[in-house]
Every structure is written in C-alpha cells, then in structure tokens.
C-alpha cells in the first residue's frame, strides 16, 4: 500500500537510476499560469521531505498583507519523467500543493481549492469525472506586432498532407500517451491552424493536472519545431475560437448517477445537475472564461454559447446532452461548452462542479430544452460583476481567491477599456 515514505523512496530511486538532473516542482498561480521550481537531485530529498519555501508575494494571487512565505509541497503520486529530455540528462516533474508555513492549506492555492470542492462532493458520496476537448492554434510565431499566422489552411476533420502542424499534433499525442495521458482522439478543427485533442476522462484533480501538462507539452513541442502554439480563446476575427468543451459525469457507489429513465436516458439527479449549471452559469463564467479575449469567443455564430440553455443537438447550447452509443450507457454525461482552454483548470472544474451540485442539493427544476433562462456575460466586466454578487462563488472559492480575482480582473478590464482598437480607427477615423 502507498505510504508517503515508499513514494519518496520511489521518486529518489527513479531519479538516481534514470540520471535525472533536474526535478521541476510544478504549481499554478490563481490565473492558472504554470510556475515551477527547478531542484537538483541533491536538493530533492529535502524538497520532498519538507517542501520548498518561497516568497508568495511574487506570484499572482498568492500575496497577502501579513506574511508572504509559503511552502510548495510535492504530491509524489504525480512524479513523472518528461519524455522529451535526453536520457542521462533527464528532467522530471511533480505537482505541488501550496501550504502555509504551519502546514495548513494555503487559501490561494487553486489545486487545493479543487480538492476542497471534491472533498465536499465525496462527503455526499459523489465522484466527479471530466473529459475536456482541448482546442488550440498552431501559429508561425507569437509575435503580436504582425498578427497571428496559422500554420496550415485545413478545416474540420481535414486530413492534410503531412505538414508541420499534423506532424506536431501526432507527436504531441504520442508524447502525452507516453506520459500516461489518455487521448481519445485528435483532429483538425474548423479553423486554419486549429487543432483539437480530446482527453479520456479522469477524476477532476488528475484532469486539472493533465490540462497543465497538455498546455505545456503542446507549447514545448511546437517551440522545438520552430513554430508556436496558443490557447488564446479567440486569436482571429471572424473565425471560431478555441474552447474547452468539458464532458462531466457524477458517480455514486461506483455507478454513473446520471443514468436514468428521463428524457435522453438521464436521471433525476442529472437533470438537477444540468439545472444547476444553467442557473449558475452567468456567475461562474468569470472563472471559466477569465480573459478580456474570452468574450470575443462567446459571440453568436461562433459555435459557442451566448445564453444559458441546454439541448441535445444545438451546438450553440451551453449544456449539451451527447448521444450515448448503444451498449455504452456508462458514458452518459453532459457537456459544458462555455469554458476556454486558457482558464485555470483547477478553478474551472471546481466552479462547474459546485454549480451542478447546487442544483442537485437545491432540487432545481430543469428548464425546457432550448429555453434560454439568462444571457451569459458579454464581457469580462459583466462577468466580474456577476461573480462579485455570487454567494456560490464565495463558498466555492473562498474570500481570499474571490477578492484577489476581482481586483486583478477589474485592473485588466480598466487597462483594456482605455485602448483604441483597429476596429475604431478603421471605422471612425475616415468618418468622424
């Protein structure tokens, strides 16, 4: 059975045997940006034992008024060699939880926030599975001055001649598989240069870790090929953006609790969960779509939701109930379609679960299929206001996270508000 000691021994022996030169201790700030310490094997034992002390005031969302010292404590079950480094000069990674110096969970740590929500769900007998579809663009480079240039000119499901982008996507999938990340399938998406990797379901914490890994691997392999990848939600005007359609299911007593006798084979519980998602969607959107640019994707006609509604077939719906293949009843699930891949996956999965569970606990009635009960926020400013008034968000994320997030996002909006855009110049300069 797994004890901390044997896990640590496993990590230390593997580092020794495989010639690992660096271990990266991974964590994320509140916005889901990837952070890491790099430790040498000589320092590793201490780091595993006691965690790494660092000054949190330099990290977005970690600063506090009183004291800023925090500990990054490795979660040894996540130790993994990074396969693209050369043998003999290996690099491994391990995810960390951020704790206060006294060992209590740090309230600004997104990973532990998700744990907290998952623990609540577990106390009610639920386990929560997620399977996201990750969309992104391969671009020639990331130079903002000349605008993004897509790496290919394919479209939905196009099988192109073996170009750089297809090769990259294939290498990425193989690398992910090598790291034990299950990929259901990968394909060319609708827009030029746009690709999609659909991940096999796991529990939400593992999947949030996986999302961090996927973003890193996609970008790293693109960089190695001399090109670039971006998870920016809407890099091109008039072309659909990149989403993170997320398939969700709740299990209880090792059974899929979404399976039932109601319409589309859903259970009463599934309907309440959907009702919770639909009702609370506006207030959680600040987390699932956290950038100014996110709201350029959530526009009519972009195959992205603009209102809170559920449906089976409508690709503009916020919540979709996918068809289940005959004999595959266990794959009964709902798909939440507003998130984008630039969200913080820990917080996004936490708020989505909390919204659904609120519907279950509160016995929410499911609106009629296709009925739009509310609009989704049209801008980051609106989303932030909705978040501020949400008791669900405060309970789910805690006041530290909410307050910091509101402050940070309002500052982003203020910076954006003062911009004069090409749209305005082209339209108004000759006219006014």
């Amino acid at each position, binding site marked *: 059975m*797994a*004890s901390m000691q044997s896990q640590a021994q496993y990590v230390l022996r*593997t580092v020794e045997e495989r010639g690992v030169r660096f271990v990266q201790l991974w964590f994320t700030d509140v916005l889901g940006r990837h952070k890491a310490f790099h430790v040498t094997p000589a320092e590793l034992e201490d780091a595993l034992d006691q965690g790494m002390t660092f000054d949190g005031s330099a990290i977005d969302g970690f600063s506090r008024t009183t004291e800023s010292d925090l500990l990054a404590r490795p979660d040894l*079950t996540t*130790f993994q060699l990074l396969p693209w480094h050369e043998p003999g000069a290996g690099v491994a990674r391990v995810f960390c939880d951020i704790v206060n110096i006294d060992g209590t969970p740090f309230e600004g740590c997104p990973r532990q926030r998700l744990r907290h929500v998952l623990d609540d769900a577990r106390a009610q007998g639920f386990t929560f599975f997620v399977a996201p579809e990750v969309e992104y663009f391969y671009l020639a480079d990331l130079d903002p001055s000349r605008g993004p240039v897509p790496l290919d000119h394919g479209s939905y499901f196009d099988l192109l001649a073996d170009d750089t982008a297809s090769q990259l996507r294939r290498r990425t999938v193989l690398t992910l598989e090598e790291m*034990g990340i299950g990929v259901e399938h990968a394909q060319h998406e609708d827009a030029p240069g746009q690709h999609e990797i659909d991940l096999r*379901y796991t529990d939400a914490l593992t999947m949030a870790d996986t999302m961090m890994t996927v973003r890193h691997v996609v970008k790293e392999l693109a960089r190695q090929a001399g090109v670039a990848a971006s998870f920016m939600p809407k890099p091109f005007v008039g072309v659909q953006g990149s989403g993170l359609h997320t398939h969700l299911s709740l299990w209880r007593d090792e059974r899929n609790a979404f399976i039932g006798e109601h319409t589309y084979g859903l259970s009463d519980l599934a309907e309440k969960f959907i009702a919770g998602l639909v009702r609370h969607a506006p207030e959680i959107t600040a987390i699932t779509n956290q950038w100014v640019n996110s709201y350029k994707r959530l526009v009519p006609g972009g195959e992205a939701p603009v209102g809170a509604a559920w449906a089976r077939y409508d690709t503009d719906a916020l919540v979709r109930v996918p068809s289940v293949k005959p004999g595959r009843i266990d794959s009964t699930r709902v798909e939440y379609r507003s998130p984008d891949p630039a969200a913080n996956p820990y917080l996004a999965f936490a708020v989505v679960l909390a919204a659904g569970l609120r519907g279950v606990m509160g016995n929410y009635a499911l609106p009629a299929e296709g009925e739009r009960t509310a609009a989704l926020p049209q801008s980051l400013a609106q989303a932030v206001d909705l978040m501020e008034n949400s008791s669900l968000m405060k309970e789910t994320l805690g006041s530290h996270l909410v307050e910091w997030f509101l402050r940070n996002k309002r500052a982003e909006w203020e910076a954006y508000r003062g911009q004069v855009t090409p749209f305005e110049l082209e339209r108004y300069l000759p006219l006014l």
Partner: protein
Amino acid sequence: MTIDVVLCVPSCEGPVRKAFDVTGVSPAVAASARLNEIAALEPAKGFAGAVINAAALPFSEAMSLCRQLRQRERAVEPIILLLDHYQLDDLTFREDLFDDFVVGPFDVSELATRLRHRLRRAGNESVAARIEHGELSMNLETYQASIAGRVMDLTYMEYELLRFLATNPNRVFTRQTLLSRVWGYEYYGGARTVDVHVRRLRAKLGEEYAHLIQTVRSVGYRFGAPDEYDV
C-alpha cells in the same frame, strides 16, 4: 560465485511458489523430508538455502531434516521454517536448527522479503528483488520497470499497480480489491481510478504489450496472457 537454487520441502505451491517467483530464486522441490531424496536434487554447487514447510510435514520429520542439513559437511544455510501458529511452542530449545521462520497464513511479500534478506546475509549477492514476466521486467529495489528492454517511465501508482498485478499473474482482481490493495489512501476517482491507471499503464506498455493487462468484463483486471475469460 553465486548459487540460486533453494531447497523447498515438501511442495512449492500458492504463496510459497509466488515468493520464489518474486525473489527470482529457483526452488528445488523435494516431496519428502528424506535426506537421500534431497541429495539427489542437489546441484553441483550445493543448495543456497532451504525453505521447509513444517506445517505440511510431520513436525518431527521437519526438525530431523533441519538437523541433518545442519550437520552435513557442507551445511545448508539459511534454513527458513514455515509453521502453523500452534507449532510455535515446539520451537523452544530448537532455535539452533533454523535461521528464520514465518507463521501461516503465509503472505507472499513477507515470505519473499525474508527469503531475500536471509539469502543476502548468507552472502548470496545476486538475489535482486525482481519480477520477470515474459518481456516485462521489474526491479523492486531500483523501482525500475522495463518492457522488451525499453525502460518505462511510470508514476508511483502506475508502478505499484503493475507490481501488484505482475506479482499475482493470471488472477482476476476486482477494481475494489485493487483499490484497497494498491491505493488504500486518498484518491478521487472511486473504482474508476483503477480504469484510468490501467489505461495509462497500457499506453506505457505500448501497443504490442498492452494486452498484458486484460480486462475481464464486468469483473475487473488480470495480468497475463489472454484466454477464454476474455471478451
């Protein structure tokens, strides 16, 4: 010079066989405790030690065999006794006849650990804790697993799951059993955690060897070659 044949009396089945498998030591099985029969089995370089299952023999015969093995010119060491708990009292004043003992019901990993430990103390350096199964090789001391000579990058839980399955080949385990035997600590996925890890392991084993972990429909998983149970 190393010797890796250990005498095993009077049979080598169940957990005893598995302990030998895990240890990577080959047993020379003698069905009776008669010395001449045992001598016929002895390799040129002698036995590396003996595992004597006193629970499966008349107790006096087991003790007499121990004494004879000790008194030989080339003594057999270590001698590990397997006992029923009610035989414990009979060991009094016979402590010189054996080096270690294990009380039943026998646990594979305890037996394997003691066997390895005693062999090593007796100077048998080559006894590495190792599981071999076809192209799969797991070194339990360095925590490294390789398939067809290719080293696998496993996370800790993947390693532990593979080790558990490979230690118990051809046995079907339910997800719940695997959870309690391999995890037994905080995890978020319920029994589906097992499915997720099996999928990861299969991906890391590669297409050619993914079949080493069989899905036994509506039951669980089994390690080994496919057979009629599979769908």
